[in-house]
């Protein structure tokens, strides 16, 4: 299992290859990549800054991965989340899950993202033509996380 909070970019292909390297029990690798969009809530986004809670962030991501392992047959997982200043088109987050079969890999990947969005201590501040603004939490993210029964 790998959890990383970093300012540097990541290589999706390299991370997907690394998770399966040297083993033959993995039948499925599912991944999700989140990118910075150039608009949000009707405003153009020139750049954004991601703040986090060092220490708690890593613990929280590791806990979410552990929960996924308890629900599905997860053989390995990678979560990378970037912090600091990002621009439209930049990658923000990567989740990679390896399982024997696709169902477990796809569901665990979606679960990790849904829980990350509502539980991991990151905050986005967007720079718009009208100035900086902190992004409001979305109800739709709570709904998405709520669909996974405890």
């Amino acid at each position: 299992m790998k959890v990383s909070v970093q300012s540097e970019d990541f290589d999706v292909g390299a991370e997907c290859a690394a998770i399966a390297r040297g083993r033959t029990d993995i039948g499925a690798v599912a991944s999700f990549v989140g990118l910075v969009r150039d608009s949000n809530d009707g405003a153009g986004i020139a750049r954004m800054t991601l703040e986090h809670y060092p220490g708690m962030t890593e613990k929280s991501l590791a806990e979410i991965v552990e929960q996924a392992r308890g629900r599905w047959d997860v053989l390995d997982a990678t979560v990378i989340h970037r912090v600091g200043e990002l621009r439209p088109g930049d990658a923000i987050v990567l989740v990679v899950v390896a399982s024997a079969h696709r169902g477990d890999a796809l569901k665990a990947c979606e679960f990790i993202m849904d829980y990350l969005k509502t539980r991991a201590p990151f905050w986005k501040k967007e720079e718009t033509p009208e100035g900086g603004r902190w992004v409001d939490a979305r109800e739709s993210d709570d709904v998405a996380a709520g669909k996974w029964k405890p």
Partner: protein
Amino acid sequence: MALKILYFAGLREAIGQSSEYLARPDGVGNVGELHAHLAARGGAWQALATTKNLRMAVNQEMATLQTRLEDGDEIAFFPPVTGG
């Protein structure tokens, strides 16, 4: 040992600082009592009371207003998270 208190994101900006150490005041035994103590400073500290859906953590675990506090604890206050 004093309490370590952290503020993040919009709350950090409103208060104008990211952290402080505070000897646990008399009568402060849980997060809710600490929250009330800090908000009662008035001025910028009222942001603690006006932030919508304020979240809190004790020793880097999500907490509630009822979570008990011990000397030396690290308490964080922040708005709902928006990562991913």
